[in-house]
């Protein structure tokens, strides 16, 4: 097949105003009708490169050619006009608008002052959704929708604009396996229809499964481009990281000890007052990783928040090391030996405008060792603590006094893990611990969770990444609409069975 380049980026350099040199002369070619994978560690410059292609950032130097013609984008509208659309890593949805208005925003039709023709837009959208078999509710404020649906809205937003090239920045980071399947189906269909797709991910097997070619970026430079059919995970990982990466997790067998966390018949309400957790019971024992698998939005968030003291418990009991901690706040729980890696790192796990030092002590700040005397923080000691965490976890940060928002996502996540581990917990909640984190960091974090387990700590792991759950868990519960469909050992079940449970069929029924 003759390949015609649709996009050529040449010698792209990007220096951010603060002096960060994010791209150091990147060349990228995308051929018409292909799915190109873009791989790279956290902070490699993938997002920067794509934002430049989408007109959101202006390159410091370098040029862009579309269909052989040089273009200069002043803003995303120029890019869209040239048929380039982008779905961002962090969703860019107006949370209080419904899907329909989010999608038509900026393309409402008619003049600025005429009434928006909602019906017409709805028809056009419905047709689009039907064609792709890709449905979203159009009238619910998007803040009330699960992330998976939000992402569909993002994709529809671009398709509604009839783009030829669709850039997807880490689209699968927040999706469940089923949603990923669905997404891939749609992307393949789009490719059939002649669209070009640029797909960014940290997940090597996804890239291998979906793409035609893969370009790898490291530290702002292109390392190389390979045909996907010639690629292996090991090869790609090595290109990304610059060294060999062990992609296997060593998990020695271990006999679990005493129950550390015991949850009895827990009932919790969701944000809209619905019953989100409907009487869950389970326990997590010392030296055990207990995984919770399930499609996102089935009560995982509410469950974690209830256990960690962030959400009101409507019924049932929670025991930590035998103490009744139902209804206790996070601080008391931390004092009793809990740690919590929250699923939402930017909104909960960190305070982005605070420094690395300040973030390193969130939730530990009242510990004696960080106080000069009661109530007065000893920042010197805290800074030492932050330095230790940076060193121990190999966090790349401009310094302890830099605002934490200047760290890349993966490093932010590492900081959270480091901080939570430094609480010396007996019980640790790890929610989506490797979401959006690059291969090397993922490897590091996963191994660390195993280490904690080996040290005899109890780990409650919640992840949308089924592979992660299967790899790490000693036992797992599959949650569906706030109830466990079954609690099983990973080695005792097949993926199909888990899939069925995630779809709402009880383990007993499957076994029958």
């Amino acid at each position, binding site marked *: 097949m003759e390949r015609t380049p649709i996009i050529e980026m040449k010698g792209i350099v990007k220096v951010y105003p*603060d*002096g960060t040199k994010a791209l150091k002369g990147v060349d990228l070619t995308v051929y018409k009708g292909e799915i190109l994978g873009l791989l790279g560690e956290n902070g490699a410059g993938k997002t920067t490169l794509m934002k430049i292609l989408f007109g959101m950032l202006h390159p410091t130097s370098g040029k862009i050619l579309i269909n052989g013609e040089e273009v200069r984008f002043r803003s995303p509208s120029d890019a869209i006009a040239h048929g380039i659309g982008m779905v961002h890593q962090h969703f860019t949805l107006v949370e209080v608008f419904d899907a329909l208005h989010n999608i038509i925003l900026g393309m409402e039709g008619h003049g600025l002052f005429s009434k928006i023709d909602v019906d017409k837009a709805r028809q056009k959208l419905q047709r689009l959704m039907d064609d792709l078999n890709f449905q979203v509710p159009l009238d619910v404020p998007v803040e009330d929708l699960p992330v998976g649906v939000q992402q569909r809205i993002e994709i529809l937003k671009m398709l509604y604009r009839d783009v030829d090239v669709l850039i997807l920045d880490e689209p699968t980071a927040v999706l469940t396996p089923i949603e990923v399947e669905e997404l891939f189906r749609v992307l393949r269909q789009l490719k059939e229809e002649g669209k070009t797709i640029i797909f960014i991910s940290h997940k090597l097997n996804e890239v291998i499964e979906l793409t035609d070619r893969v370009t790898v970026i490291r530290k702002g430079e292109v390392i190389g481009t390979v045909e996907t059919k010639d690629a292996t995970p090991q090869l790609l990982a090595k290109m990304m990281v610059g060294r060999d990466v062990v992609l296997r997790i060593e998990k020695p067998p271990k006999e679990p000890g005493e129950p550390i966390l015991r949850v009895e018949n827990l009932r919790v309400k969701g944000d809209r007052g619905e019953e989100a957790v409907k009487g869950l019971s389970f326990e997590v024992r010392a030296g055990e990783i207990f995984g919770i698998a399930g499609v996102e939005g089935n009560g995982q968030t509410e469950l974690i928040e209830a256990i*960690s003291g*962030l959400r009101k418990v409507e019924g049932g009991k929670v025991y930590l090391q035998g103490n009744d901690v139902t209804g206790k*706040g*996070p*601080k008391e*729980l*931390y004092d009793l030996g809990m740690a*919590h890696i*929250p699923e*939402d790192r930017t*909104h*909960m*796990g*960190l*305070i*982005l*405008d*605070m*420094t690395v030092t*300040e973030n390193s002590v*969130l*939730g530990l*700040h*009242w510990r004696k060792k960080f*106080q000069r005397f009661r*109530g*007065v*923080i000893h*920042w010197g000691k805290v800074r030492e603590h932050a330095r230790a965490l940076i060193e121990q976890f190999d966090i790349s940060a*401009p*310094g302890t*006094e*830099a605002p934490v928002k200047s760290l890349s996502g993966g490093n932010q996540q590492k900081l959270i893990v480091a901080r939570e581990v430094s609480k010396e917990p007996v019980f640790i909640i790890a929610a989506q611990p490797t979401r959006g984190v690059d291969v090397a960091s993922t490897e590091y974090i996963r191994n660390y969770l195993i280490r904690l387990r080996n040290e005899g700590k109890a780990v409650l792991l919640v992840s949308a990444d089924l592979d992660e759950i299967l790899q790490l868990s000693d036992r797992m519960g599959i949650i569906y609409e706030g109830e466990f469909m079954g609690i099983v050992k990973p080695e005792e079940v097949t993926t199909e069975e888990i899939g069925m449970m995630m779809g709402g069929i009880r383990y007993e029924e499957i076994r029958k």
Partner: protein
Amino acid sequence: MRKSGSELIGSINLRPFVESLIAIFVGFLIGGIVLLAFGYNPFEAYYWLFQGALGSTRGIASTLKYATPIMLTALTFAIGTRTGIFNIGAEGSFYFGAIAAVIFTNIWPNMWFGLAMGMLLGALWALPAAVLKVYRGVHEVISTIMLNWIGWFFVLWLIVGPYANPNDPNKTIRIPVEARMPEIGYGLSIAIIFAVLASVLTYFLLWHTTTGFGMRASGMNERAARYAGMNPKRAVMWSFLIGGLLSGLGGAMKIMGEGPTYAISQGGANIYGFGFDGIGVSLVGRNHPLGIILAALFFGMLRAGTALMQAEAQVPLEIIKVIQGIIVITVAVPSLYDLVKKAFHRGAAQ
């Protein structure tokens, strides 16, 4: 990594300070053009301004005196901002601090008692806004504006009725001599020391205590603060109460520490407007307690120099207000800093 402008000294960042200095400079520059436009000699005008504010011990004393109340009301606003609250209730708390000083020193003529009751009543008047915010979600802009007005009329009622001075009805009863704040000299009392101390303590509270850490964290990200075991609702409460307390102290010291009257004038003329002025001071001080000390001194200077500027350069007060307005507006432009820096770099490169 780069260690230039963004390097931190402890938790005190010097960049905002430099930014404000540049803004003030530009403000004076534009103000000078305005003066010129109206036919005044800017050099002469500014000379007398600085002469009046800093040229003599007496001038310095009045600069410090003017700085005192606005330093405290600025702290109220700053604490609010740092806790994610747009608290413009300093004005109301200031009234209550003042009236409390009048009432309670006349019950027990003791300076400490008067100050304590001023702080207490100041904090109490902030309480409704705090409670409404935390329990009813009432936006503080509404509640504080309304409470300022309600408090204003209430205090007006108190000073013209129950606490009017029977010997001199143009003011309230006076602070008994024993309860007045000792004078340092030239009409300046130790109130300024208390104000600076309050700023330093506020800084210490916000940046060096667990409570302050909780307040700042809640202000930046409520969810994260809750997650970290802090109590954002309590932080909001603290923010209002400490804010009210500081403004209450300001109000009390305004009456107890500033002669010759040592009473509230009828119509509240000597207690009105400090809360609003404090907002400007806080913003110019970048909502940082230590910055506020400097900003309050700066504003105090502008006001102390006004008299001589009027008397010697004959610049009318209105023009001085225009210049002050321009200076405040230029402070809003942080990119001035970058522009200046760029210009310097270009200069250095050539």
